């Protein structure tokens, strides 16, 4: 299906030229547990243009996943604004869909039922719902598995069903929280290719959180590097010079990967020192 067709079928407001699809303005978030306060995010400013693929990279505990939860509307920032097409975020809404490390499919439904679950939630019913579900199932090459139970699929297939379920709803922004980190290396390679293809096909705006710098460089148009607590944006990198589709082991990416790793090294060191309480413990990326 072409991008124009997709636009026609979209029930949501189309992007206005000049207004970013997603913008975070001065976002801060602090978590309290008993007497301890932990600043997860400190004054984050980020703009994502329509159709852009942005990867967020940083050490564990830098608040990357918190950003996704905030954009999804599942949590609220302490200060700052989150705007989708210029409109403030006020809670969960299917125009911002979150994909997790686990596929979060419903075991009482079959594969096609899972995709239809999402469509039903946004009020698409009848014949159109089944057709659209099948269409998106075909996009992830799982149309032969429509009637399968979730537990009969492999981990990678389940994650593809989850991706199809999200894309079928046609969100404004797709939020992916380390969606491939529980998969084996081979499956992950395949999904990297598939995701780039789906992204090109559907023109979705994607915010993708990962620990893996290689994965970020393979997938993203732009890589945003976070500092360890409090999470701040340390640096941004563009991959515009790297041709697509990219593969995880592609040689062209190596230089950029090294550069980002160098920046990340110090942050990971801080994270390890804090977590293990031992500043002498060395980690080499």
């Amino acid at each position, binding site marked *: 299906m072409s991008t124009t067709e997709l636009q026609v079928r979209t029930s949501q407001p189309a992007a206005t030229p000049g207004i970013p699809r997603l913008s975070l303005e001065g976002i801060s978030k602090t978590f309290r547990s008993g007497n301890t306060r932990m600043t997860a995010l400190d004054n984050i400013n980020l703009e994502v243009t329509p159709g852009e693929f942005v990867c967020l990279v940083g050490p564990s505990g830098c608040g990357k996943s918190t950003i996704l939860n905030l954009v999804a509307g599942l949590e609220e920032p302490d200060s700052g604004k989150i705007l989708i097409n210029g409109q403030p975020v006020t809670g*969960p809404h299917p125009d911002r869909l979150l994909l997790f490390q686990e596929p*979060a499919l419903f*075991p*009482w439904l079959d594969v096609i039922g899972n995709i239809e679950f999402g469509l039903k939630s946004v009020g698409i019913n009848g014949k159109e719902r089944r057709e659209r579900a099948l269409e998106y199932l075909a996009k992830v*090459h799982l149309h032969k598995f429509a009637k399968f*139970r979730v537990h009969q699929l492999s981990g990678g*297939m389940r994650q593809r069903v989850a991706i199809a379920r999200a894309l079928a709803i046609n969100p404004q922004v797709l939020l992916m929280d380390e969606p491939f980190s529980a998969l084996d290396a081979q499956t992950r390679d*395949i999904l990297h290719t598939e995701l780039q293809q789906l992204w090109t096909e559907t023109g979705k705006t994607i915010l993708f959180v990962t620990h893996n710098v290689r994965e970020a460089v393979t997938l993203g148009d732009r890589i945003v590097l976070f500092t360890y607590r409090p999470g701040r944006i340390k640096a941004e990198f563009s991959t515009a010079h790297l041709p697509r589709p990219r593969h995880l082991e592609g040689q062209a990416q190596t230089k950029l990967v090294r550069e980002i790793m160098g920046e990340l090294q110090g942050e990971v060191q801080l994270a390890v020192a804090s977590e293990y309480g031992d500043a002498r413990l060395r980690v080499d990326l």
Partner: protein
Amino acid sequence: MSSITSEAIPQLQQRLNTAQPLKLARKTGLTLLKVGLYAGGLFAIWYLVYLLMVEVFQVWISALFPAPVDVLVSLVDHAADGSLWRAASASLARLFIGFGIALPAGILIGMGLAWGRWFRSLVGPIVLGFQALPSVCWIPLAILWFGLNERAIIFVVVMGSIFSVTIATYDSTKLIPPLLLKAASNMGVKGLAVFSRVVLPASLPAIISGARQGWSFAWRSLLGGELLTAGIGLGNLLNQGRDLTDMALVMAVMLVIIALGLLFDQLVITRFEAYIRQRYGLVSRSL
């Protein structure tokens, strides 16, 4: 790009399905054989005890400890004259009405407990309290409220089983993976739809286990109610055996009660549970 396994898996699935019936028939035959041997063994021991205690040492009398054959004869007699069928069908009718009310109502109250803090703090203690009350304790109240009739017994059956279903349902909602609720909320599911589309189906396997427990509670409550009130039924038939000192009849009715309870549990609830668990992928099927 094409997926690696998309060709192989449907074929594997098909092979699995065609292999099932043969395996199932063999398994059923084996199970029947085992059950037969087991029951035969129990009856043999019973007969041995009868021989020793009644015939050889003459410490017991056969009127109080009948031989298996006497019980069987009584069973056949009462089946032939229709009294056993009338009693069993009257009892089962009460049971199905009572359990038919208790099951959906119990699930509904259990969902209510999961739904709201205020509902939980108001109704939760009542549920726990009544669950601690043995169901026969409802009989005096039921008789005064409804009289010595069907409604009194059905009321006792409902009160005897509803709270175990309620507690099982509420407990099962606490075990739902939070990620599923998060995913549903993210897709815009809210309010009552969360319950009908996520909470209820997600807790179904555990609710079925609760239903099994509720069923056995209903069965007990029914017999308790029937023993203490009048009217046709298995409990009444037991009382008749006591009044006539007909121990063979008493034992025959006890056997029928055991058989009916087990039959429903094994043939209906266990099968449905196995089916649901298989659908949900909760059983590891060895290939």
